[in-house]
């Protein structure tokens, strides 16, 4: 069940890149930012989306499952770690298997890198760098009760649908209260993009 984790609310993201800068300061990957900030529909909307590792729970860490070198470690607290540099062979399986588009790869160093929930901080009870600096609360670190105490009525989702598959995650996204009822096929159905079906994704034409 959801413990202390990151809650992402893209509705609050102003695309300021503070999280991207702060992520570079994380000790486990100094100088390299692991958080992604994407402007989803540039030119038409100012909407932006920060992406940290979702720390998939079921199926547990697809990135680790497709890793041929057993390089990705999952600790008992549910944190999916970046690849063990001793083992990673830089094949890119994790990069392409992750449905959220999280892992990065350095092809020269043959090394995958990804958000590890600032393990150097969160394992000592501190908030991750990104959530510490986010000025709007688009990235919130805490428990679901703490989130709901600050933002009455909001709900969170840890279920994401990709085609017929639902992936449940350790990091949650904030959803409006009216989305509280279970949504058939899950919440984030990539078969639809901007309300239109995307051909080739198994969407009915």
């Amino acid at each position, binding site marked *: 069940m959801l413990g202390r984790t990151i809650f992402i609310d893209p509705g609050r993201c102003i695309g300021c890149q503070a999280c991207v800068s702060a992520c570079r300061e994380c000790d486990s990957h100094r100088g390299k930012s692991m958080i*992604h900030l994407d402007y989803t529909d540039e030119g038409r909307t100012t909407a932006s989306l920060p992406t940290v590792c979702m720390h998939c729970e079921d199926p547990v860490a697809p990135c680790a499952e497709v890793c*041929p070198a057993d390089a990705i470690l999952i600790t008992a607290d549910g944190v999916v770690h970046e690849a063990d540099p001793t*083992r990673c062979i830089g094949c890119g399986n994790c990069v392409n*298997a992750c449905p959220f588009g999280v892992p990065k790869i350095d092809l020269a160093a043959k090394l995958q890198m990804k958000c590890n929930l600032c393990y150097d901080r969160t394992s000592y009870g501190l908030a991750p760098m990104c959530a510490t600096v986010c000025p709007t609360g688009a990235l919130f670190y805490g428990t679901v009760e703490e989130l709901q105490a600050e933002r009455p009525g909001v709900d969170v989702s840890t279920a994401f649908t990709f*085609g017929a598959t639902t992936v449940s995650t*350790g990091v949650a996204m904030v959803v409006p209260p009216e989305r509280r009822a279970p949504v058939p096929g899950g919440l984030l159905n990539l078969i639809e993009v901007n309300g239109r079906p995307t051909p080739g994704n198994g969407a009915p034409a």
Partner: protein
Amino acid sequence: MAVTPPPPGAAGGPSAADGPPPYRRGAVRAGPAPGETHSPTGRASLVAAAASMLLVLAILLGSRGLRDFDSALVPYAVASVFLTFGVVYRYTVWVSAPAARRLFVEGWRAALSWENLRNSPTALPRMAATYLGFQKFLGARSHARWAAHQLIFWGCLLAAAITFPLTWGWFTFTSSGASGPGYEMRLWGLKLFGFDSGSFLGWALYHGLDLAAVMVIGGVGYFLWRRVRDRAATTGQRFGYDFLPLLALLTISVTGLLLTFSEMFLHGGGYEFLAVLHMVSVVLTLVYLPFGKFFHIVQRPAAVGMQLFKYTARRRGSDAEELRACRRCGQPIDTVAAVDNLRATMRDLRLGFDEWAEYCPRCKRVLRGSAYLSSVKRGFK
């Protein structure tokens, strides 16, 4: 899915009492797959036992029926047999998991293909030298780590090249004459070359292990310093996984050097005790090798297989044919063969979203953001 608030005290994930084992990696199938008669572990035991028997046979034959076998080195020889069992067992279990198995097959297919050998005969030796010998990729991670790792790598390789044949009774040194300083080095009883024990070559041959120890101590010293001081390395480090291998190498090297020290300066004082200490540290390290960080020595050739698989697939045709472009933005993702291999792996693992592998990471995020924008929080209100 709406999330109900967790019960008090549930924060911080599963507890140690009811949760999964503290650490796990990837997916290792426990039971036999449909259509398989043996479980991966059962098959691995058989293969490992066969490999160990093969080594015992090689020791018997190579030492000319134990005639050249040095009985003082029995514990080392026995440890090498256990090492063979452990390594082969772990290797077989490892390549039985879906992702590793598919890469294993593709890597060997690329390495053994006549077509590849004809088209790019230098690819395999070049990649083996780059990834296994000189470890160029480590230089891209950090120059200091590359240098320290090279010291450990070549030091261990030198030590292994000297000690394994010695403990198996494959190398013997015999005097070429009754009185002279001449010596002959023999392999399986056959003379390789003769040398003067007082010459530089003689000195280097007798002190090869000392040289190896100095190299290893240099590299291990840097890595130990890094394990204490570097905050990237200290994040999530574990004693058994990160420190033990370094301490093991250090113990072997220091006790080995002390043997030489005792012989040269103490007239053999404490030699027997040091010899036992050295032997114990070597034996424990060899037996531990298949389990912790040292297993990367065995795993690493997979990097060559993977690289060769991608390289030869790309050389088969034009980039337009052989590179898979993102279905949304058209940027190349990987070779067609690698993406197809990954999709098959994902289907093996019942990860039902393998189609997403044909989108680049950024497009996957943008698609998700767009879906959130249009159907969850319309207009991000």
